[in-house]
């Protein structure tokens, strides 16, 4: 059968040869309702070079796209910018098939790839700032450790003014369009923000340093070619400014109220808190973990100033849905948040104290006294919830006025 897949030209010497995963819905706990792409790129230099590969089941699709341009056996070099399996899963098989002269990764990348696939001794480490001649053009490598794994690096192709940015500026969005300028800006912003919140957020201080490091190189970048989602070839400043905004995590006049409920008591409290916040002029997002995915919560927290969490007590603990989202949020390290806890209980009532411990461990500043109620809240308790909301609102207004 004739190969059905084609490469897409990105710049004078670069082709997209990745794969579109229309059906993936879970990335290690991050839900991806719109699928994803695994982007690999072919540099048609004197020494033909493949930048990253794809997730293992998609190897044939990548090879098919490469074949539309050149016999894969002509590939001389393979660069692994990021060792995670969605970009390296088929690397050992591709090395066997293509038999490249050399395979390169960062110093940490060579270690990681050996730990993932074992016996990868032919992979050569490149250092930060090192260059590789492809004959008629040159690649420059830049370490970007912890954006978002220790092995991560960028590769710059000066000839085409193109930065292979691996997971930076990426998103999980399966589209037939290959370029960001072919897609609606609102969707791009939503998908890029969701990706940032679920993947990059804990490393925000490093993102700001990396952006400065790229600027300091003086590279005149015209294209960002990430490992997921569309390629940026117009108005790069737009996505750079969004990254700066998300990475700086300045407090905003927005509160996210996250709760789970058993018999709607904690829910009543959540509603009372939210109404009071909104009345005080705060933007509110109310999310029930009985219905909401953790990925959506962290997306909402990304541009929030307050995180208010509620849970009933179940068997001396918080509800498992709340334990899920608190574990996830703690790992993603949202910063500069104020918060409070609330919840209903039947007899022992540990949940609210437990939630406060979670918030403190996350370095969320407790800005209002917790509200806890035995069984169903009456009007006095709901008034206390409203007071909690007002107190958080006042503190948010004070903080955002100063920033």
């Amino acid at each position, binding site marked *: 059968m004739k190969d059905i897949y084609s490469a897409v030209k990105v710049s004078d010497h670069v082709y997209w040869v990745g794969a579109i995963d229309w059906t993936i819905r879970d990335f290690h706990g991050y839900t991806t309702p719109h699928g994803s792409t695994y982007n690999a790129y072919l540099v048609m230099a004197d020494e033909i070079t493949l930048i990253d590969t794809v997730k293992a089941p998609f190897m044939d699709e990548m090879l098919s796209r490469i074949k539309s341009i050149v016999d894969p056996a002509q590939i001389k070099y393979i660069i692994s910018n990021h060792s995670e399996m969605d970009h390296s899963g088929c690397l050992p098989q591709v090395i066997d098939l293509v038999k490249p002269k050399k395979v390169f990764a960062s110093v*940490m990348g060579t270690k990681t790839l050996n730990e993932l696939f074992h016996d990868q001794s032919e992979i050569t480490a490149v250092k930060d700032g090192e260059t590789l001649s492809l004959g008629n053009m040159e690649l420059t490598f830049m370490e970007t*450790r912890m954006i978002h794994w220790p092995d991560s690096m960028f590769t710059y192709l000066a000839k085409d003014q193109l930065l292979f940015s691996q997971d930076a500026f990426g998103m999980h969005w399966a589209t037939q369009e290959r370029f960001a300028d072919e897609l609606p800006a609102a969707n791009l912003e939503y998908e890029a923000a969701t990706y940032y919140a679920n993947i990059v957020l804990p490393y925000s201080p490093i993102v700001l340093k990396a952006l400065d490091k790229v600027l300091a190189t003086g590279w005149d970048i015209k294209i960002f070619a990430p490992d997921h989602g569309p390629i940026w070839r117009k108005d790069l400043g737009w996505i750079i400014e969004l990254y700066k905004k998300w990475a700086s995590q300045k407090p905003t006049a927005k509160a996210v109220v996250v709760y789970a409920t058993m018999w709607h008591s904690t829910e009543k409290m959540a509603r009372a808190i939210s109404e009071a916040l909104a009345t005080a002029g705060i933007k509110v997002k109310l999310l029930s973990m009985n219905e909401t995915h953790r990925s959506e919560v962290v997306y909402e927290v990304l541009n929030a100033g307050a995180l208010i969490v509620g849970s009933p007590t179940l068997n001396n603990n918080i509800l498992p849905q709340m334990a899920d989202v608190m574990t996830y949020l703690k790992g993603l390290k949202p910063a500069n948040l104020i918060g409070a806890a609330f919840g209903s209980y039947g007899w022992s009532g540990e949940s609210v104290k437990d939630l406060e411990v979670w918030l403190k461990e996350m370095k969320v500043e407790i800005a209002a006294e917790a509200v806890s109620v035995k069984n169903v809240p009456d009007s006095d308790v709901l008034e206390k919830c409203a007071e909690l909301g007002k107190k958080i609102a006042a503190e948010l207004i004070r903080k955002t006025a100063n920033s």
Partner: protein
Amino acid sequence: MKKYVCGVCGYVYDPAKGDSDNGVAKGTDFKDLPADWCCPICGADKSEFSPE
């Protein structure tokens, strides 16, 4: 001698083990690490570390 944790990636510097990849001998206290020593996993500098 206390262990120190990297606030970026979670690596733990254990004075009893040192950091042989970067020429730090076993038994080196965290405060005696060179000023330009950085996390062997993620490259964060010493200021990102806190006692475990």
